[in-house]
């Protein structure tokens, strides 16, 4: 079967459009479903049973006043909404790690039971500081709040 050039062109455009749509759909779906970068602390706690002790990224704000160090570990809590998750970090926190900032942690929930059912303590050795898109000029005389934050 021979096609005229205009028919061939129309077919090419049709096939091309379908391919483009499939490509765009794949990128969108692939990213939405498999590359979910992190779960917020409250999302993680509500799907605690399904997550088990598998490794994932958790996000939340470092609760001011919760940081303390014992041996080589750093203990603190992160919060999202009304949910608080206790954290044990066995790595070295990055330079900008401080109370009141959002962080993303790589790790897993502690196995076994904690107070009040399955433990929601999260074990990590990698902390990433999630900076917001707000910039504040440093001021040498800025007063620090009693809980250590500078807002």
């Amino acid at each position, binding site marked *: 079967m021979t096609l005229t050039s205009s028919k061939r062109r129309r077919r090419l455009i049709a096939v*091309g459009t379908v391919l483009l749509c499939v490509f765009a759909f794949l990128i969108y779906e692939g*990213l*939405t479903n498999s590359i979910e970068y992190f*779960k917020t602390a409250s999302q993680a706690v509500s799907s605690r049973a399904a997550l088990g002790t598998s490794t994932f990224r958790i996000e939340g704000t470092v609760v001011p006043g919760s940081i303390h160090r014992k041996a080589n570990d750093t203990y603190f809590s992160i919060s999202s909404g009304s949910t608080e998750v206790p954290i044990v970090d066995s790595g070295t926190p990055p*330079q900008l790690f401080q109370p009141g900032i959002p962080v993303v942690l790589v790790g897993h929930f502690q196995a076994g039971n904690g107070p009040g059912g399955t433990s929601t303590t999260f074990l990590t050795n990698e902390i990433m*500081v999630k900076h917001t898109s707000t*910039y504040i*000029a440093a001021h040498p005389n800025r007063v620090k709040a009693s809980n250590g934050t*500078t807002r």
Partner: protein
Amino acid sequence: MTFHVTDGPVSNENSDFYRLDKINKALALAGRKMWRTLLGAVAVASALATTVLGLYVTPKDEHLGNSVRLLYVHPPVAWAALYLAFGLTTLCSILYLIPKTRSPFFDKIAGASAESGILFLSLTLITGSIWGHMTWGVWWTWDARLTLTAVLLVLYLGYLSVRKISGTDHSKAIRNSIAALIAAIDVPIVHFSVIWWNTLHQTASILTPNLQFKVPPSMGITMGIGFLSATFAWVWMVRVRYEISVLEEARESESLTTLIQNRRMERVG
């Protein structure tokens, strides 16, 4: 592409004078040199201004400290890559595909713009990686924004290799234009990735949906000059690269003419 084989005196057509004249004519077609120099000068001046303001005038950030100074480099180069360079490549490719506006000029500009885009996108990834190391604590992470930006670089490298595939000028330009449109799909996805998905990368500071300005004035002004600098540097690069492609074409047609002339001389001799 058009070239003419004339039956005039052979020695004349091979002379240096003839060659220079041809190159000059090609350059005249590409536009006046003065504008190019002026563009380059403005780009350099604004880059210097950004450097001085960024390093000595603007304050440290409360949390980021000195690393906030990358704010005057990273967003401007990303702007030049994604929106200016790949934007112009897309626009010119569409203009070539529409029969009414079709011109080899658009194909050349599309290629020139994509090449500068690759440079700016590489700078975006490099400065972003340095900044990530200083603020997040990691050089690289596979979040949606970073992953898709890496994909974007590969897509446009692919576009540049498609441009090298041989064919007639018209079939090449059609192929280039379609490839450019495929690569362009990723640009809006990169832009909205920080809104659509959870990412470590922050959302926009300047181009926020409600146009809120979330930086102090002196930082904002320096950032603005940084944007100008990247913009002028990009325009300069596209212009110079376009002139080079005009020269390349002129040389190609000239060497073909020379070959034909040489053959003719062989026969006579």
